[in-house]
């Protein structure tokens, strides 16, 4: 069943490629604006790089999260998904997995490339890649709760940012922290472990919270 939901969402995303590309473009542009605005001060660029890339990733995922359930809600397929014989958290998990593949994986892949603009060493770029790989599932998982809560509300897009961005703070601190640690010559592993722990905790709780929120939103 999970397979069908993921496959369905991937196919829908493929048919609406422009949505996916706009998220990636947003990320690339936001990250690139900083080196352009600050100028060739390598020392400064290197120290702000982890924060900038991570914040851009958070904002880029805000763009796509609004659509996580909204499209299905509008055409009535979300009701049908609620009435399928599998537990609702599996449906949510499938949609979150598809969202991660469609909206977050491209960011993870392109981050080392845009990171070059900040004069980061290959070692640091590798840690940036790993930290995003471990951290972005958190963005999709926690984001799904916000997307479910704001479903069908006017101005849902802004509301979801206000609700969810504060919850992203631990991911931001440990994700950017791992990269910073590498820059100053320390081991990034403690940060990555904590990030991984946070990802597991959100994997355990977010699908349940999101399915409860969906039931409320659809009443």
């Amino acid at each position: 069943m999970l397979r069908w939901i993921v496959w369905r969402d991937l196919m829908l995303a493929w048919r609406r490629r422009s949505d996916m590309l706009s998220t990636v473009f947003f990320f690339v542009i936001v990250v690139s604006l900083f080196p352009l605005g600050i100028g060739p001060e390598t020392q400064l660029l290197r120290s702000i790089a982890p924060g900038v890339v991570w914040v851009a990733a958070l904002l880029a995922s805000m763009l796509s999260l609004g659509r996580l359930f909204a499209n299905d809600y509008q055409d009535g397929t979300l009701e049908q998904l609620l009435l399928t014989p599998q537990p609702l958290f599996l449906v949510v998990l499938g949609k979150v997995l598809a969202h991660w593949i469609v909206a977050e994986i491209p960011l993870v892949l392109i981050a080392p490339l845009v990171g070059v603009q900040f004069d980061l060493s290959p070692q640091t770029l590798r840690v940036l890649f790993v930290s995003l790989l471990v951290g972005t599932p958190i963005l999709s998982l926690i984001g799904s709760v916000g997307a479910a809560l704001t479903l069908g509300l006017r101005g849902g897009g802004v509301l979801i940012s206000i609700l969810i961005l504060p919850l992203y703070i631990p991911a931001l601190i440990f994700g950017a922290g791992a990269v910073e640690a590498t820059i100053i010559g320390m081991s990034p592993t403690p940060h990555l472990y904590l990030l991984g722990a946070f990802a597991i905790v959100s994997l355990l709780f977010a699908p349940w919270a999101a399915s409860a929120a969906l039931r409320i939103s659809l009443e």
Partner: protein
Amino acid sequence: MVARQRPRSTAVEELDIADCRFAIANLQIGNWQSAIGNDYNDRGGKSNILEVSKLGCVRGDRRLFSGLDLSLSPGTFVQLTGPNGSGKTSLLRILCGLLSPAEGEISWRGANIRALGEDYVTELTYLGHRPGVKDELSALENLRISNALNGVEVSHEGAVDALQRMGLAGREHLPARYLSEGQRRRVALARLLLCNTRLWLLDEVMTSLDKGAVGLVRSLIENHVKRDGIAIVATHQELELAAGVTKRLELST
């Protein structure tokens, strides 16, 4: 089927409850039952599998209905009528478990539907007044995916056949956004051909359908009722079936 025609008996019960009033008209169409020589009525041979007791619904600060009792045995068709805003959609959404009732309870085969959870959902098919068809997917993909998610994996040929029977031959591979409103509705209704659920809850499924398609839906419901299914259909159009027990449930404001 045409052997003996009995006059149709009509019993109208009127209930006055609190601020809300229902007229439950009970129409029994006799010719099918007499043809198979089985004089059966509501309380007869078959036991009721769907029991609704003292159901009440409040939306916002308005009470739509209260004290609604309904018991249905296999092979029953319920035509749910009433003016706009009288709570037809809410009642159907309560019956499928999407909405929780303000009071009262619903039991399926003797157990509360809340407790049954997924076991109840596997036995029902709900088609809402939004068709639930994805614009980006073709009619075929829509049908196969919605069936697969409901645990019924349909082969390519099976799905094509169902779409052709719904009058969509030649349009199976067209993305649904190129289909007209009525054709999208037909895509949604094609699910009824492939599902094997006991309880059908259909909400205004006749809107934007042409005459031929309405006839098709009627025969689908007729077959379903003949195979001991239950169909509860909210509609403004009169729907007369030649089989099973027909009940009319009228909600009023």
